[in-house]
């Protein structure tokens, strides 16, 4: 029956004395449930995977298959979401795979310091995403309304009306650009004040995110569990106060602290 070779797919690392209950949860290979393995103070949350699907070569092919990628990424995310029930969890990049349990144990031994350090950093905290999206039309109109360029100037001379209008539109657009950069920076600073750490990520590709409007802020915030409600309230308030400018805030989470497990991701 077990003709297929198996490997160990590791999702995350948790403290050995605080591993969340993950029994009965299917792994990225649905034939196998999530297990844990302990080495010293560290536990690895993993599941078995068939190498005919997760081996080096098949994996490369499978990553190009959108259906496979989505299934795998969602299964990975589901395990992390459940693991978040624990106090501290360090997420690993998708598809971190070891030949066997000994390989996992060796790594827990070898990376012990780095992993303990990461666990300490995220203990009692989860990651939240706040995105700010701009409706360019509404924003330009709002800026034009408040613009220092008098609206009447466009009608001054009939011959120049077209160019004047074009100029006005350009000024409004440039003003709008400068303004949303400032608004995004202010919004991020405000949210950062309510987070243990914060970072900005590149805006998501509009085509990939499927969102209308331009993403002007893609912030990630490491928030104390006890401050979650407060953080959400600040985000909600910021959302309400920017609506008339055509700017909306979108809060999502909690996520495993993907963006805060390395020392480099601590710009605060």
């Amino acid at each position, binding site marked *: 029956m077990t003709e297929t070779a198996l*490997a160990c797919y*590791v999702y995350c*690392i948790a403290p050995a004395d605080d591993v969340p209950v993950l029994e009965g949860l299917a792994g990225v290979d649905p034939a196998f449930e999530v297990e844990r393995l302990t080495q010293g103070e560290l536990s690895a949350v993993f599941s078995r995977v068939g190498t005919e699907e*997760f081996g080096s070569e098949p994996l490369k092919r499978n*990553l*190009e298959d*959108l*259906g496979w*990628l*989505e*299934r795998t*990424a*969602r299964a*990975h*995310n*589901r395990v992390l*979401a*459940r693991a978040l029930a624990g106090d501290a969890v*360090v*997420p*690993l*990049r*998708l*598809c*971190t*795979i*070891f*030949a066997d349990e000994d*390989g996992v144990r060796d*790594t827990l031994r070898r*990376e012990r310091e780095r*992993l303990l350090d990461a666990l300490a950093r995220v203990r009692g905290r989860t*990651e939240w995403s706040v995105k700010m999206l701009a409706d360019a039309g509404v924003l330009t109109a709002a800026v034009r309304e408040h613009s220092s360029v008098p609206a009447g100037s466009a009608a001054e001379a009939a011959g120049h009306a077209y160019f004047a209008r074009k100029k006005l539109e350009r000024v409004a657009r440039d003003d709008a650009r400068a303004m949303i950069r400032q608004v995004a920076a202010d919004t991020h600073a405000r949210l950062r004040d309510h987070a243990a750490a914060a970072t900005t*990520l590149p805006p*998501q*590709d509009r*085509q*990939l*995110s*499927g*969102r*209308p409007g331009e993403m002007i802020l893609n912030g990630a915030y490491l928030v104390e569990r006890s401050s*979650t*409600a407060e*953080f*959400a309230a600040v985000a*909600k308030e910021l*959302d309400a106060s920017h609506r008339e400018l055509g700017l*909306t*805030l*979108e*809060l*999502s*989470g*909690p996520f*495993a602290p*993907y*963006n805060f*497990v*390395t020392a480099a991701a601590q710009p605060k």
Partner: protein
Amino acid sequence: MTDRHPDVMTEREVSLVEILDRALGAGIVISGDITISLADVDLVYLNLRLLLSSVGTILDGHDHASDPEPLSIGRRDDGSA
């Protein structure tokens, strides 16, 4: 932005790109026997864009106005968080 309590948001559909940006673009990188390289990550995104531009007409046919939630790429998975 939702009015629901933050804890409830885990039940919301998380878009695939949201998951990939974190699970592929971040997280601690430990070299396993098999580990996705940065080049692999770039390739995944490149493929996503190629695939999406080819299904763009399907997505464009979707009524965005009636769907304020982020549009998921591909199938929906109710068990996800």
